């Protein structure tokens, strides 16, 4: 089984936000919830850079570790998923997540967050694959259809890569070799405790 990962080649991201839009549309994500977003660092200053970020599906995922009801599970592909049935909306996963991935339908005052929602790597949830119930709760299950996450699939500059971690790391290495520069795999050290040596 592959260990899937996300990799955003920040030298290619043009902040078009199409990954964000594709994700919202594919999974019918409600208002106020962003499973993926593009963050611009040093906006408007020399050295500006944009990075698309969602759940990184971490190794030893902090969200899963701190969850008081153990509602997370990891698939054979190392995708980190959770059960909304079990989630109690305590918010701990957001405090633990290095990438701000967990989202909640409500503001959260007096513990009123509601069930957590996050990027599923387009792999649905614990309900039967590709059912109406799974779609309503977790979004489309593209992995069950043999497809990769839509955000990366339709990225116009192929900045966002998704798939087997070894394969996308190789693609990135070759890119860096060819063009002569690369800013590294953003977030990988924190998420996977390793980075791509180029």
């Amino acid at each position, binding site marked *: 089984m592959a260990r899937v990962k996300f990799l955003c080649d920040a030298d290619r991201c043009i902040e078009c936000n199409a990954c964000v839009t594709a994700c919202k549309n594919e999974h019918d994500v409600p208002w106020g919830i*962003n499973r993926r977003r593009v963050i611009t660092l040093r906006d408007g200053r020399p050295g500006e*850079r944009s990075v698309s970020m969602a759940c990184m599906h971490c190794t030893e995922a902090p969200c899963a*570790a701190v969850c*008081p009801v153990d509602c997370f599970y990891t698939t054979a592909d190392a995708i980190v998923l959770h059960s909304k049935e079990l989630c109690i909306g305590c918010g701990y996963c957001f*405090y633990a997540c290095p990438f*701000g991935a967990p989202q909640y339908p409500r503001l959260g005052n007096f513990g009123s967050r509601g069930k957590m929602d996050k990027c599923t790597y387009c792999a649905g949830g614990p309900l039967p694959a590709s059912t109406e119930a799974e779609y309503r709760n977790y979004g489309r299950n593209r992995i069950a259809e043999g497809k990769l996450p839509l955000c990366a699939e339709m990225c116009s500059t192929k900045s966002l890569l998704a798939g087997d971690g070894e394969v996308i790391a190789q693609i990135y290495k070759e890119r860096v070799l060819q063009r002569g520069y690369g800013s590294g795999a953003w977030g990988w050290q924190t998420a996977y405790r390793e980075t791509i040596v180029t």
Partner: protein
Amino acid sequence: MSAPIRMATVLLICLTTIFAVGPVGAQHGRDTPPAGVGAQPSGADPTAESVTESELLNEIGKLQGRVTIPDGKAAILVQPQGRTYQSFHERWLPWIGAVVILGMAIALAVFYLINGRIPFGARPSGRTIVRFNRLERFNHWMTAASFIVLAITGLNYVFGKRLLFPLIGPDAFATWSQWAKFAHNAFAFPFMLGIVIMAIVWLRDNLPDRYDWPWLRSFGGFVSGEHPPAGRFNAGQKLIFWSVVLGGLALSASGLVMLFPFALVDINGMQVAQYVHAFSAVALIAIILAHIYIGTIGMVGAFEAMESGRVDIEWARTHHSAWIPPDDPDLPERTGARVPAE
């Protein structure tokens, strides 16, 4: 020359110049890259000035930028402090909590096995005196009941999945935890109110006085069996009072931060609030265990004080000689016949 022809000539010259010079300029850029970047086939590194992850992490410890969505929290790209929170929550807190709380329970058990119950220490006179009035008692029990609910539901956040989850399974445990969370949020309010009232009504009698140091030095006479003098509250009770007030303050402040997430602080502030909340909760639970022990099975006659509000006058004279002096002949307004528990 007429004006149109003159203009056409100028235009022609301009275009010729552009086409003649243009390719030369481009050629120049391609053929002679700046010194020091020989390894790069496409020329200079266009991202040479761009920020890198390690730079930013060294600068402020996290990566923060700008997003086009209203949710300001989403502007943080990476906060490695989440990993710190993870190891605090899963590696340190369960151990610290278990050692401190179980340690206190074991210490109390050992103390009980060695010393047994602390005796009444006087011959009951049958005459009683008011020690705690209605407000004091009501407030004590309101705070106590809230604290017990808060402690159990709070411990559930850390130990529930380790102890209860394997016994009852994921679904029942999630349902219980959901209700436990609601209870934790709701009972916080009577607890906070109780702490405020407690601080007001008992502050005066809990200020340090000249009896405290000798009392502490003789360990309250628990071991020797003597009764060092004390005011309305002895130094041990004062320590409980200040632990509850200061611990309650820390719990309330950090708890309010958590009840209104991100209203006052950012993600790292939320993590700190959890650290403060967890550590003060563990400490206060251990202290309150000792308080419950001494107030129930640990000492004969102690429970009645907070139950009925009245204590035997001889008990008061023995244990709190600076509050009710032994030579005080009569206390007409405050004494009376023993009344049944309210």
